[in-house]
């Protein structure tokens, strides 16, 4: 199902022409209205006039999280904040948050993109969407709410937490779709397992939209199995309107990124060199329609690749792969770029260890992975443990191209990971 078929299946040449027109407009807008951008452009010796083709985007300066924090609260606006309607923020790892302003049109575009996402996964006005994301400064709640309203679905703004009430709403209002974070989905799965199949029968759930945090294919499969829903991966960030920047279609194979709203690039996070489709690097996004606070070449720090092949669904907007990791988490071992998420994926597939692992990088380019033994893995047999250790070592070597030493440790010996736990400990000397 399409929300806007002519836009979603627009021929590539026409789509690219539209992108170029919007890129020129956006570059001119920030150059003329935002002194900080004018300064950045001048430092690179470029003006909006230098943009003749889409490839010329690489001449423009990047915008980093640091730039957003430096310009807090409202120095990147093209208009007075009286003419904007909504403020969202996104917290940085340190210091001031990043504030993002939206005009009426900006909210409308964001909601429209979400309407496309929901429609392509089967949501109609007959559906009931329980939005289990926190409402407030975070875009996950409100933006999805607006998108689902646009489709005309019944929206239950249940927000996150109070699980018993969530279940009650789900049962009483016959919720068909939920929007939630993977960690909350895992928690919900535990509850569903405890309540048993009789409870699941009373629930009408068909689909779950998961986003806001990266998660592995294994986590998705686990949730699909327990909740008996289809899980659609959603990618978004507050700086780029929140959820629905890219979204899985009914084929659940990569996320279509709405290219009439964003210009995407993939660059090598260390060298900033642009990479061709299919290669893994940092996703760089430029807003193409934003009025209040356009952002040029935003360094998302998210690691992914553009899928070069066409999707069976007929949409021409290219897909990106599941987020592989954060550029900040990346480490280099013997010249190979490695992301902790790659290791996590192997651990999940072989050992179902989920989040209980740590990575140590030691002198001499040695990598050690400590894995907590779980009850599920232990049957009292030492030989089985040795086999598990050997399997993990081999599968990890295939994935990261470096042979790690795998250490099995007792449960609870690694610190419990609440959200962004430290996983990588680099003890190598820096030369």
């Amino acid at each position: 199902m399409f929300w806007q078929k002519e836009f979603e299946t627009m021929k590539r040449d026409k789509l690219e022409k539209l992108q170029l027109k919007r890129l020129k407009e956006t570059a001119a807008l920030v150059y003329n209205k935002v002194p900080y951008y004018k300064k950045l452009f001048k430092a690179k010796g470029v003006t909006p006039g230098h943009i003749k083709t889409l490839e010329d985007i690489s001449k423009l300066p990047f915008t980093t999280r640091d730039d957003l924090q430096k310009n807090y609260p409202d120095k990147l606006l093209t208009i007075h904040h009286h003419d904007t309607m909504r403020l969202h923020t996104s917290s940085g790892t340190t210091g001031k948050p990043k504030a993002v302003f939206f005009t009426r049109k900006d909210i409308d575009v964001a909601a429209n993109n979400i309407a496309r996402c929901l429609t392509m996964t089967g949501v109609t006005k007959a559906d009931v969407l329980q939005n289990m994301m926190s409402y407030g400064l975070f875009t996950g709640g409100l933006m999805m709410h607006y998108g689902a309203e646009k489709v005309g679905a019944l929206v239950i703004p249940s927000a996150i937490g109070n699980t018993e009430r969530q279940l009650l709403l789900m049962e009483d209002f016959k919720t068909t779709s939920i929007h939630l974070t993977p960690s909350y989905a895992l928690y919900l799965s535990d509850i569903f397992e405890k309540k048993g199949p009789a409870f699941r029968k009373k629930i009408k759930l068909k689909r779950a939209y998961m986003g806001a945090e990266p998660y592995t294919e294994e986590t998705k499969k686990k949730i699909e199995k327990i909740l008996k829903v289809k899980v659609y991966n959603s990618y978004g960030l507050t700086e780029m309107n929140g959820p629905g920047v890219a979204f899985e279609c009914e084929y659940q194979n990569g996320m279509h990124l709405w290219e009439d709203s964003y210009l995407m690039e993939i660059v090598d996070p260390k060298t900033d060199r642009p990479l061709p489709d299919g290669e893994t690097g940092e996703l760089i996004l430029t807003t193409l329609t934003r009025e209040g606070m356009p952002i040029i070449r935003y360094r998302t720090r998210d690691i992914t690749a553009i899928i070069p092949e066409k999707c069976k669904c007929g949409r021409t907007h290219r897909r990106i792969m599941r987020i592989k990791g954060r550029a900040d988490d990346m480490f280099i071992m013997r010249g190979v770029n490695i992301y902790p998420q790659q290791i996590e994926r192997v651990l999940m597939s072989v050992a179902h260890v989920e989040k209980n692992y740590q990575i140590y990088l030691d002198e001499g380019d040695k990598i050690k992975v400590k894995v907590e033994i779980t009850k599920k893995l232990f049957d009292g047999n030492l030989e089985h443990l040795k086999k598990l250790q050997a399997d993990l070592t081999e599968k990890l070597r295939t994935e990261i191209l470096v042979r790690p030493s795998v250490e099995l440790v007792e449960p609870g010996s690694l610190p419990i990971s609440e959200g962004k736990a430290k996983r990588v400990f680099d003890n190598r000397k820096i030369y």
Partner: protein
Amino acid sequence: MPILKQLSVFVQNQPGKIERLTSVLAENKINILAFNIASSGEYGVIKIIVDKPELAHKKYKEAGLTAYLSEVLGIVMKDKPGGLNDVAKIIAKNRLNVENAYVYVPKSRKNAMLIIDVRDIKAVKQNLEFEKKLKKR
């Protein structure tokens, strides 16, 4: 041939780790009857036979230890020359797939018992019982 309950506990080879296992048992007045360590270097599996296996299992879980409760075979060894040889014969005759074995000396100190960890203990037990019946006939 009695079937006993055995606790297997995962431990890292670090100072104080084994002491933790025994102290949990001591605190709960559980007696250790037999004890065996299989180690791979960095970690190992400790096998314990105690007088209250279910309670020990519960207390280990509460202490955050990874413990596994399973059944093992006990073969009585006659305390006389050739006692172990008799046991070896039983093992061979019954084609027991022994994963681990260690000795348990009961309080009576009459006959020592060889604890053996075999795969598919239920089948082994059935075979043994069946043979016993045949002999009685």
